[in-house]
């Protein structure tokens, strides 16, 4: 029984060396949108995704977050969401004026 358990552990360790861990797979997923993965890494990632439901969810959720981040950037830039207060404007105007009047 002890021997079986030991074999199982050795087998899992061996498989871990061949297969990506979830940590490694999620790192590759984060990189894959920006850098081209090597053929080996790409294959390892695909194999991992075939067997790991959690990582498939991670991939889907990363896409959702990415699209919302891109959308957020453009909306905030377009909409002037944040404005200076009148006090801040006055302070800035004073600084500019002081600098302009420097001899």
């Amino acid at each position, binding site marked *: 029984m002890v021997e079986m358990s030991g074999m199982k552990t050795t087998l899992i360790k061996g498989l*871990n060396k061949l297969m990506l861990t979830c940590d490694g797979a999620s790192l590759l997923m984060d990189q894959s949108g920006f850098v081209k993965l090597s053929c080996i890494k790409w294959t390892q990632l695909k194999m991992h995704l075939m067997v790991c439901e959690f990582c498939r969810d991670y991939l889907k959720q*990363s896409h959702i977050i990415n699209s919302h981040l891109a959308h957020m950037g453009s909306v905030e830039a377009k909409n002037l969401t944040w404005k200076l207060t009148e006090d801040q404007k006055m302070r800035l105007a004073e600084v500019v004026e002081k600098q302009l009047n420097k001899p």
Partner: protein
Amino acid sequence: MELTPENWVENHGDFLFNFAYSRVRYRQVAEDLVQECFLSALKSRQHFRGESSERTWLTAILKRKVIDFYRKQTTKSDSSEDSFSSPFIKEGPFQGRWLRERSPKPWSPTADEHLNQEEFMGVLKVCLDHLPENWRAIFVLRFIEEMESDEICKELGCSASNLWIIIHRTRLKLRECVEKGWLK
């Protein structure tokens, strides 16, 4: 095209403040950056050639100021490294697999159906604001400024591998935070 510094606050103040605030998320810091931008612009106004608009020129100066601010943030030693709690099993035969209680759970399909869904965006914004300073800096440069990773490394003086580790950890933290807020 001539510069009109006396009208900068009125004509571009809000635009520049919005630009800075959306990147640094602190009103006072954003104001300071806009002020530094105006002062730098005044000092180097003889270099303005009129090839771009006044606003474009000021925005380029402000962008440099934001990056300088980020550089200071990333070189500051902070506890973000120590405070990162990995969602993966740390040792044993299952090392590197998701901890069951922190593994990704399926999200509601509406999260990706409505891109501008305010509730989701609200959760995401709160989560971004809770990231450690230096992580958010890298994240903003990569995802909002869309800078290439080697450019970010050059600007912030970090190695490519370190950059990817930070991006990876930031995404893990952000995903988990969004999930908690979204599924609540």
